[in-house]
C-alpha cells in the first residue's frame, strides 16, 4: 500500500479534515459542536503525524516517535474532551445555555 499511495494524498486529506474541523470549531453556536470540530482538527493532525512516521522514519520499527506522539495527542484529546464537556455541563447548569454566543462574559 505504501508504495502505491503517495504521501501527498494523506497530507491533502489531513488538510481538508483540519479545515473542516476549524470551520466547525469557529462557526458553530452549540458548544458541544465546537468541541466536535476541535476533535476533527486533532484527528487531522494525527493523520499527519502517522503519515510522516510511515514515510519519513528510516526504520519505522526503531523510530516510533510519530506513533507515540499520536498516542499522546489522543490521550490529550480525551482529557480535553472530558474537561471541555465538564465545563459545558457546569455552564449549562448555571446559565441554562450551551450557546457559545451567549457565553460572552469577557466583554467590554
Amino acid at each position, binding site marked *: 500500500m505504501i508504495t502505491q499511495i503517495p504521501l501527498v*494524498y494523506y497530507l491533502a486529506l489531513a488538510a481538508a479534515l483540519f*479545515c473542516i474541523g476549524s470551520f466547525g470549531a469557529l462557526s458553530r453556536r452549540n458548544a458541544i459542536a465546537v468541541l466536535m470540530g476541535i476533535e476533527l482538527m486533532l484527528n487531522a493532525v494525527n493523520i499527519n503525524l502517522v503519515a510522516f512516521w510511515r514515510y519519513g522514519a528510516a526504520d519505522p520499527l526503531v523510530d516510533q516517535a510519530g*506513533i507515540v506522539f499520536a498516542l499522546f495527542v489522543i*490521550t490529550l484529546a480525551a482529557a480535553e474532551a*472530558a474537561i471541555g464537556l465538564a465545563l459545558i455541563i*457546569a455552564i449549562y447548569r448555571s446559565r441554562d445555555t450551551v450557546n457559545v454566543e451567549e457565553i460572552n462574559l469577557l466583554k467590554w
Partner: protein
Amino acid sequence: MDVSTIIAQLLFFLVAALTLTAAFLTVLARNVFHAALALVGTFFGVAAIYLMLEAEFLAIVQILIYIGAIAVLILFAVMLTRGLMQHDQISFNHQWAWVALVVGTLFLGMFILILQVPWLQSGAAVTADTVPSLGQQLMTTYLLPFEVVSVLLLATLVGAFIIARE
C-alpha cells in the same frame, strides 16, 4: 500504473471520501445528535487511514478511545443538554461567512503548498510487528512523557469531577 496501485488508490479515495463526507456532516448537521453520529463515522474513517498507514495499534486505539470513550461522552453531553438546540434555530453564529472565507483560504494555501513540496515517495518497509517495539519504547525512551501524561489524565479526572459536580 498496475492494477494493485489502482485498487489501492481507489480504496484510499473511497475511505477519504467517506471520512470527509462524515466530517462535513459533523460540521454542518443542524441536529447536534446527528452531528455526533457523523463524528463517529469520521473517527472510523481516520482509523481506516491508520490501517492503510500500517499503524494497526493506533487504529485500534482510535476506535477504542475516540469511538468508545470520547464519542460516547459527547453523546451523553448532547443528551444532557437536549432540548436546547431546536431545529428551527440557526446552528451557525454570525461570523460563519468570514470563517468560511478564512478556512477556504487556509485550505487552498496548504493544498498549493503540499503540491509544491517534493515529498518522499515511499517509506521503508515494515518488516515486523510494530506493537512490541512500541510498547518497549513507551517504557524506556518515552517513559517520562508517558508518566507525565498519566499524571495529566489523573488531574483531568479529578478536575472534571470537581467542575461538573453540583
